[in-house]
């Protein structure tokens, strides 16, 4: 419904051809860093229970866009956000919205794995604890379930009390995914989650993304176009702060509407 309205007002970005309900609707989103325009009038619908990939050259605004969805840009001095973002119809940029409640619904995994210098258990239990879960049995349950979900349980089950920093890079990243899931989010934002990992660890993360989309709506930023093609249902191409084209991944990679998109995915520029 929203998608149709949108394509009528703004025909230059194609509406996502997917039958899934819209989870996140973005309209007229503009971000300034100081006097620099980082995102210019973005409109995009993110479908529920699908993987949406954001691609584009460095500095094109895709990470900025991702960080708008859980208001992480609030913490950057000089960042100004305009326009509307809604999740299930709830406004994200409303003075009445508590960023804490929002980030409970919208989890995030970063490019560089960033486990806390705490034990594996305490890393995963951090989110539930700060949101008020005190019961050790429940905590244990959450930790075990999310570590399973992140396909890490078998590797760490015997050393939950060891420091998370002892894990390998790929394991740390999966731990960060488990940590994000432990809060019980509906949306998972991933900012180049595999860019620092070797191919085997990358394959594990990608497999994980496939499994997670049944339960979560995933938005992933990636520099790796093969990765976007492999994991995503929908791909959005950003360039110089603008959303050039968005469409079903297969269509976008085989038959893009816009010549700029074609240039980028065929490697003709950059």
């Amino acid at each position, binding site marked *: 419904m929203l998608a149709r309205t949108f394509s009528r007002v703004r025909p230059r970005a194609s509406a996502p051809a997917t039958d899934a309900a819209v989870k996140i609707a973005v309209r007229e989103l503009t971000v300034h860093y100081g006097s620099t325009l980082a995102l210019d009038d973005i409109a995009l619908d993110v479908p529920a229970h699908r993987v949406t990939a954001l691609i584009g050259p460095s500095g094109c605004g895709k990470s900025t866009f991702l960080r708008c969805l859980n208001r*992480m840009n609030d913490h950057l001095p000089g960042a100004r956000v305009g326009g509307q973002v809604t999740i299930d119809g709830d406004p994200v940029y409303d003075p009445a919205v508590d960023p804490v409640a929002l980030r409970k619904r919208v989890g995030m995994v970063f490019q560089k794995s*960033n*486990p806390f*210098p705490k034990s594996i258990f305490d890393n995963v239990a*951090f*989110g539930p604890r*700060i*949101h008020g879960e005190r019961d050790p049995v429940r905590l244990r349950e959450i930790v075990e379930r999310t570590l399973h979900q992140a396909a890490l349980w078998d590797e760490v089950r015997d050393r939950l009390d060891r420091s998370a920093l002892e894990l390998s890079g790929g394991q740390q990243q999966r731990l960060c995914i488990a940590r*994000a899931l432990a*809060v019980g989010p509906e949306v998972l934002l991933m900012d180049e989650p595999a860019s620092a990992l070797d191919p085997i660890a990358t394959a594990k993360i990608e497999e994980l993304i496939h499994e997670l989309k049944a339960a979560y709506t995933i938005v992933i930023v990636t520099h790796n176009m093969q990765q976007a093609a492999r994991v995503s249902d929908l791909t959005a191409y950003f360039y110089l702060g603008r959303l050039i084209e968005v469409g079903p991944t297969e269509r976008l990679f085989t038959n893009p509407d816009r010549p700029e998109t074609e240039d980028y995915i065929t490697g003709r520029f950059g």
Partner: protein
Amino acid sequence: MTGNYRSRRRVERLMFAATGAATGVTLGVLLLLLGYVAYQGVGALSWHFFTRLPAPVGEAGGGMANAIVGSGKLLLTAAVVGIPVGFLGGVYLVEYGRGTLAFAIRYAADVLNGVPSIVIGIVAYALLVRPLGHFSTLAGGVALGLMMIPVALRATEEFLRLVPDTLREAALALGAPRWITIVRVVIPAAMRGIITGLLLSLARVAGETAPLLFTALNNRFWSPGWSEPTASLPVMIFTYAIAPYEDWHRQAWAAGLVLLALVLGANVLARIVMRSGSMRMA
């Protein structure tokens, strides 16, 4: 080509010698100082030195038990004043401080760090000794505490800055409010370094004499509480060293040795704290 190489070799050797010599002088001065104080002081060190009060003028023997305890009480007071202010100030600067206010605080801390210690003593005298009407451990400790603030603040700030922003982001992205992020993630990650810095700031004021001269004054007897004048190792050293008695001079050396050992001990302890366990931060 060859000539060029030869001249580069010459410069290289010259620089190596110069830097090596400078290192040698630094180390030499430290070793000379430690060695000489130890040589002079060790003779007067005895069980009595640690357990007895100073002997009456003209009598040999006696110790500096009151000065050792006095220094301990002064440092405790200084820690109570200096650590909370320095620590919380450092947290503020890193986590909240922006713009002019942060600049002003940092600048004020640097200026305070450069204020001659005798001036700090005068301030404590005017603020505490005069209104209360007597010299006291409290006044001396507050003077030392004021001196600690900039050092503790800068140390806290420095180590908090080492905590990568990715850790703060991780906590915020999990829905942690700012203060929980600071208390549960940032400070624990930097704790080891902060403790080290605070220990060093304590060691730094342990040897201060000037701020104590007219705040804690001195005392040849036990100082029972916090509102009486007290003896302290630095002031005892000063008093004994300028006195005309041979025996007092020996005791001043011994006190110097004890003070040095104290400061050195704090430094070593700080290193141990720093090394033990993993200080790795993602």
